[in-house]
């Protein structure tokens, strides 16, 4: 564990001196700010069934497509390219500690970025508290449910980023691979459900299976305050599998 914390500090330092981190952060804040503003604007024009914060978090997949690749593409690909992984291996550090430290550093930054977006409803609440009801802007249960989902799905998304970064020496290729995997995970499940809607009976094994891998459906449950254990198993098991594969990948580098 001693090495793990040392490496996490080192990885966070590396992330803060890497230009892609700042590009990802600025793009993330700008895009999410714009999305929140657009949701508020639409609420003033047409009555909405769902609150602003639920609509806001339901678009979680949009920033994921560029934030996760930008935060993770460098992590192992760059080390492989500069051969600095070999230098790390020469110290008495277990390989899983190297992978986990890279994962946690990127995950921490990812969560910080999402927590920063809570300023949007807070600012709006302070400015418009006379005009809008509290529940439509800041609903604690919806925020907590959405944040639990963001944190849980973030584990898988960052694990995908770390894994794809271990597949290549090129940051660019790692970023593109990560985007492709994330697109399949986020959009693929939903599209599969739409495509097979008429072929499988609701409640059947196949339909349940397809729903089980639909990330967007998971969000809908969480935002309603439904904490099902199955998504936890889904996200954590795949993340552990991907991180284990990453350890094997860097082991083969030695």
């Amino acid at each position: 564990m001693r090495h793990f914390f040392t490496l996490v500090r080192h990885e966070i330092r590396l992330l803060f001196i890497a230009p892609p981190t700042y590009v990802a952060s600025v793009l993330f804040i700008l895009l999410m700010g714009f999305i929140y503003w657009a949701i508020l604007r639409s609420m003033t024009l047409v009555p909405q069934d769902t609150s602003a914060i639920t609509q806001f978090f339901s678009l979680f997949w949009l920033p994921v497509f560029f934030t996760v690749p930008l935060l993770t593409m460098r992590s192992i690909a760059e080390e492989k390219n500069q051969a600095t992984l070999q230098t790390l291996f020469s110290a008495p550090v277990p390989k899983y500690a190297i992978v986990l430290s890279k994962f946690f550093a990127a995950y921490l930054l990812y969560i910080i970025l999402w927590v920063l977006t809570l300023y949007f409803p807070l600012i709006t609440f302070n400015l418009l508290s006379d005009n809008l009801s509290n529940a439509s802007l800041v609903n604690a249960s919806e925020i907590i449910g959405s944040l639990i989902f963001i944190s849980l799905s973030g584990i898988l998304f960052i694990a995908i980023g770390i894994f794809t970064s271990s597949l290549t020496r090129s940051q660019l290729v790692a970023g593109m691979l990560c985007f492709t995997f994330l697109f399949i995970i986020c959009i693929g499940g939903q599209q599969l459900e739409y495509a097979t809607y008429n072929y499988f009976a609701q409640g059947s094994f196949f339909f349940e299976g397809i729903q089980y891998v639909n990330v967007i459906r998971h969000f809908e449950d969480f935002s309603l305050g439904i904490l099902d254990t199955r998504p936890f198993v889904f996200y954590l098991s795949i993340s552990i599998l991907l991180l284990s594969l990453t350890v094997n990948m860097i082991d083969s580098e030695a």
Partner: protein
Amino acid sequence: MKSFQTSLIKAMDENISISVNNLSKNYGKVSAIKNADFQIKKGEIVGLLGPNGAGKSTTMRILGGLLRADSGSATVCGLSVADNSLAIKRKIGFMQENNPLPEDLRVMEYLKLRAELKEVDSKKLSTEVRRVMDLCDLFRTARRKIIRSLSKGFKQRVGIADALIGSPEIIILDEPTIGLDPHQIQGIRKLIDSLRGKYTVLISSHILSEIERNCDRVIIINHGRVVAMGTKPELSEEFIKENHLRLQVSGNIESLITRLKSAKEDYEIKEEQSEQNDYSTIVIKSTEALDISDYTEIVNQISHCQLKGINLIKPDLEAIFLAATKRSWEEIRIKS
């Protein structure tokens, strides 16, 4: 008697830092190391020599716990490398070939990180980093510099400082002088000299003169096999069968050559007498021992022939290296 033998074996084991027995490693069908056998004693500085692709780096990487051997065994400070890869990393400071360093960090930041990873006591961390920076002459000039901005020589110093952190028992330096200019090479040489007696050092290099000056013993690897091992006099005795004597003479050289021919001496004229040189250089080769006094007498017996200089030519490491690798190539050719 038995207990005496046991204690003798134990004492011998304690005196050995690195022991390699029948070590082999293949990359697919290519054999990188074949049944390598050698031992390195505590406090020795040993040079690992060999042509490109001979298996030097592979051997070093196996000893450093970075690579697993296919067969055979290697022990470092009495610990099996295969079974204790993390434990042996605590006993070895390893500078790898091309010395890969994180370019974005400052020298001090990097060395502190390495000290933490090498489990240096947190209270002694700053003192230890300062010690290795002083040893490698980095503290005054480069401690705050970003590694990317350093010259090749300073980067090598950072790599060596990294290897020295935590005072490991063994230092492995893979090509520490590669790509350096003569001044930088001299600096690194002095640095390695300063390690004598404190650490067991294993160095690989292509610069034979560096190995010759720095190392107590040399191991020559060719085609994955250890083809020679020993001190320079031992190796020259094994591989250099001819003795060479250099005569510098002026005047009646023809008479001297006639005398050498009549005595059936094998000789070679290296430099002719010219306007620039007022003497000729003749190198006499013999498988027998050559005596300076005999040849001084021969020259003095010839009229109008003056002896300007006479000395035995000692074979350098390059000659030994070429002879050892040539012999191993010939053996491989015969086998195939």
